[in-house]
């Protein structure tokens, strides 16, 4: 039996009056590629952050209450050895007025703090990983001038530089064009093939989830469905998660 990258047991999170996650239980074997789908406010980001040991939500009205168990490679999230988990947050929260070069962002992933000066060896490592995600030409570009897709690649490079065993991505394809998105999956699959890493990715793109993921988690505060895409992305599950199955969903499901 494959080792488990992620083990979540009856995990609930409450921010004041708001129940973000309810009794979520989940097992992700190493090497899996899990797409996490669900409506807005379903707790997808909260779940990802739980794996990083970040339980504070953006809602600060009321105390945070957490119950249940989360284990990453058998460790509590805050005790996972550094570098084992890579994280690509939603890029929309970034402050473009901060003076930063792409290479600085990538090196900050290596050092886990902001660089004052960058040594030659670090520059080499950063360039190497930027090249892997097709962003070498961005290395000395100022962050504020990059497009959404370019920014995404830089953040991806940052998350990969320490060769994590678990990669967490929060809507990496949002704000990226179709070509960029196809590239993203290519890079992720290449990385997985090379390192045997486990990938958990929040996405709104179900078609992509169908094609690339080994498993899909449908989340709406509770686990609505979890399993291979063809089993999970079915009418009943989706109407339960979303309250209805819209036209776009119909097209994706091919009338199943």
């Amino acid at each position, binding site marked *: 039996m494959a080792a488990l990258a992620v083990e979540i047991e009856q995990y609930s999170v409450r921010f004041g009056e708001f129940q973000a996650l309810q009794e979520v239980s989940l097992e992700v074997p190493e090497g899996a590629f899990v797409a996490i789908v669900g409506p807005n406010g379903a707790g997808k980001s909260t779940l990802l952050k739980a794996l*990083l040991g970040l339980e504070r939500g953006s809602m600060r009205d009321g105390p945070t209450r957490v119950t249940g168990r989360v284990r990453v490679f058998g460790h509590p999230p805050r005790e996972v050895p550094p570098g084992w988990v890579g994280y690509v947050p939603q890029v929309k929260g970034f402050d473009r*007025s901060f003076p930063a070069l792409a290479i600085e962002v990538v090196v900050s992933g290596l050092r886990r703090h902001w660089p004052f000066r960058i040594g030659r060896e670090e520059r080499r490592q950063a360039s190497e990983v930027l090249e892997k995600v097709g962003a070498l030409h961005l290395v000395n570009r100022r962050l504020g001038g990059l497009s959404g897709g370019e920014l995404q690649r830089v953040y991806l490079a940052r998350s990969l530089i320490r060769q994590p065993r678990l990669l967490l991505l929060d809507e990496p394809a949002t704000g990226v064009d179709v070509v960029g998105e196809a590239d993203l999956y290519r890079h992720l699959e290449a990385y997985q093939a090379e390192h045997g890493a486990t990938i958990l990715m929040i996405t709104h793109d179900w078609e992509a989830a169908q094609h690339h993921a080994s498993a899909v988690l449908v989340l709406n505060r509770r686990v609505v469905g979890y399993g291979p895409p063809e089993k999970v992305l079915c009418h009943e599950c989706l109407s339960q998660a979303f309250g209805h199955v819209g036209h776009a969903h119909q097209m994706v499901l091919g009338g199943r």
Partner: protein
Amino acid sequence: MLEAFQLPFMQRALLAGLLVGGLAGYLGVLVVQRRLSFLGDGLAHAAFAGVALGLLLHREPLWVAIPFAVAIALLITWVREQSSLGDDTAIGIFFAVSVALGVLFMSLRQGFAPDAVAYLFGSILTVTPTDLQVMGLLALLMLFLAPLWRYWAHATFDRELALADRLPVLWHDYLLSALIALVVVVSVKVVGIVLIAALVVIPAATARLLSQTFAAMTVLSILIGTLTVLPGLVAAYLFDVPAGSAIVLVQALLFGLALLKRR
């Protein structure tokens, strides 16, 4: 002109200006990037209340202002963390309370003290050796804490990533607020309560216009903060105007030039 700088009080004024300019320039980059410019102003008014309280109690005002301003700084940070109120609301509340308290303390004091005005607008020429010692100590502390720049910068760039990297972001928030409070209080004599916020914000804002990296912005801000003190003092001496306003106007001029250069 040069003979003037052989006078001890002018030398103290210069040294005080350089120290304060450097300290404000350094912390200013964090204040500006974290969008806490209002905090500098808020803490300046907390310093006002602290100074007024000190004068009321017949104590050396800065010794009262320091714990007062630091306490307010920590409270503001705590309120920001705990509630969903915006940063500016939290700061605004303490700002208003501080001003009200300051006015109250001043009115309780018998007679309207001219030295209160000196604290409002600065009186760099009355900087005492003790003041210099405090400024020097603060500068040493900042140097000692220099290795923390890398963590502060990281959290400033992306707080979530910094948290994910297990940096003690919250502790650093409190520490930074306290340090800003300290710098604000020691700056009171140099530029006055009314202008401290400018000293913290303008060099950093200028530096940002001219920098590609945060490291460059930090270094440049410190340089601008310190180097503008000399022409400011010279202008104050030559034209008999308050040093604080002269320094800030020189900084504002530099900012204007940097803005034009960017176009």
